[in-house]
């Protein structure tokens, strides 16, 4: 091995419940992949290699939400072993689609609808939640999937000991940079103003409204967006469902209030 390899950061990439799209995106960084494996000591990356070690880690990148007891234990174990935990992708950061049922009763009802009375033998199912429901998360790298550029920049910064530098504003900013005509102003239900940027406003570039798949921006003005969509003629349930679709847990307080279930 080359000199200095001892100093390489030990990294683990893990997947919980999700589509594995984030892990796939990392693999898809074809041009950079060799440099990545050279720059870091990647100890565990199920999608990429078979000789995975579950030891002490400098950084764990965790994709997916927690939806079983076993995943919860795995996550707690990762936290114990890793100095820094980075949530990657919408599911790890905000729960994703599988966490759209915010209310426990709604979730139970839906679970029953899907699985009936089938007994779960290998592990106990849990209402799906983002990983920070169980552990402390050091950094969040949202996306559905995460963006290549933001991932490489974050990976690089973490290797050098710097915190990630992400866009903290909404999709609207990138959308304007791409000189798109505002869909909201045309009466199309776009979640751009409440969704965090980094995707390059890719949907709006193709004339499709933002569905909020990167999760809510820190300062999302949900009240204003909600009433704006109401005024554009969309009904209460439609807007609520749309907002909760990808990142319900990220705006649970607001959506709870709407339902009259103040926490």
């Amino acid at each position, binding site marked *: 091995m080359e000199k200095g390899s001892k100093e390489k950061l030990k990294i683990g990439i893990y997947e919980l419940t999700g589509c594995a799209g984030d892990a796939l995106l990392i693999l898809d960084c074809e041009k*950079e992949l*060799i*440099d*990545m494996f*050279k*720059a870091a000591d990647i100890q565990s990356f199920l999608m990429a290699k078979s000789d995975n070690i579950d030891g002490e880690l400098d950084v764990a990148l965790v994709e997916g939400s927690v939806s079983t007891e076993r995943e919860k234990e795995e996550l707690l174990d990762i936290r114990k072993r890793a100095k820094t935990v980075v949530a990657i992708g919408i599911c790890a950061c905000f729960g994703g689609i599988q966490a759209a049922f915010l209310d426990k009763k709604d979730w139970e009802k839906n679970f029953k609808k899907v699985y009936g009375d089938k007994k779960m033998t290998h592990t106990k199912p849990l209402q799906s939640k983002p990983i920070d429901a169980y552990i402390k998360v050091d950094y969040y790298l949202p996306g559905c999937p995460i963006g290549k550029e933001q991932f*490489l*920049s974050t*990976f*690089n*910064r973490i*290797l*050098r000991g710097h915190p990630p*530098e992400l866009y*903290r*504003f*909404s999709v*609207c*900013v990138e959308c*304007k*940079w791409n*000189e*798109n*005509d*505002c869909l*909201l*102003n045309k009466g199309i239900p776009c979640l*751009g*103003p*409440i969704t965090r940027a980094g995707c390059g406003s890719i949907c709006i570039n193709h004339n499709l409204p933002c569905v909020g798949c990167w999760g809510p921006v*820190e*300062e999302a*003005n949900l*009240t*204003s*967006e909600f*009433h*704006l969509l109401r*005024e554009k003629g969309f009904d209460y349930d439609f807007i609520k469902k749309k907002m909760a679709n990808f990142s319900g847990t990220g705006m649970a307080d607001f959506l709870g209030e709407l339902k009259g279930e103040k926490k």
Partner: protein
Amino acid sequence: MRIIKLKKDNLFPFLEVISEEADLWAPVKKGDKHVFKVVDDFSQIEMNSTRTILPPRKIFLPPTFDMFSVSEEGYKEDFSHITKKILFGIHPCDIHGLLILDNFYKQAYLDPYYLEARKNTLILGLSCWPDEYCFAKSTNTHIIEEGFDLFFTYLKDFFLVWIGSSQGDDLVRLKPELFDEKLTDKDIQTYLNWQAERDKAYKWDLNFTAMPDLMELKYGDPLWEKLGDTCLACGSCTNVCPTCGCYNIMDKQFLGGKDGKIMRHWDACTLEEYSEVAGGENFRKKRSDRLKLWYTHKLQAFISKYGKPSCVGCGRCIVACPVDINVRTVGKALLGEEEDAFWIRLNKEVTK
């Protein structure tokens, strides 16, 4: 200033000749809006366009570009985004916008990225006709006397062409036979009639003289909280404004020993992170405080400093803001005139 005449049919041949050694940027259609784009096919040029979605400053300082490439050896300036350009079809208000930016980027320290791009771009202005959002007459930016190399006033079947610089004159001399040096009395009368009609076409105005005082007197007005409650902090008003220039820096390092980049991207004072310092203290945590800063800059600060507002009346913020927070509704509210706007309706809705 010398004024000559160009037959309508001679415009494309002229553009053809002058764009041989530079990219020709002009307004073209995007959906039902317009954008500045490099054009090869001149028939795409929208001669009667209104405002473009983004102001022409995007041509000088793109939303994102690399300032430096960085290696162990140091910083290497990156001017690769700067090429020779001709900007055709820019309206008087937008030329005023550039003049304001010129002032800004030249004060105290020179910004080489802006000034180099400016030096490499010829400005060919074009007259326009106001729509329901324009209010350039209120800001006195519907008339332009400087800041262009050529300016074309479009009069049905010919253009009157103002030659504003020696580079502009050079362009004309590339194909002087396309132009007509002599103006007839009729031409002059046509122009005067057009101007009178155009001035009458502005559908609303705003008393800018009153704005600096009103900004001061109403600094603590509940109006700002109402605006702050509704503002989506989406940065659209700032991004589309021809006189906004704030930016942020990102340090991009690559794996495998490749050179890093120092990237510069547009920022907006209406965004949450704008005034936040390391450690998390934010001097303008509230959206209302950020809006106050933006409107202080547009309606007050420049007037105190340069005697004119930094708003040029282009109407872009009016078109862009999804919740109707714009120079028009805010200006009118400061004057005590109630306008219909989403933020007013929302406030009634929520307090109800």
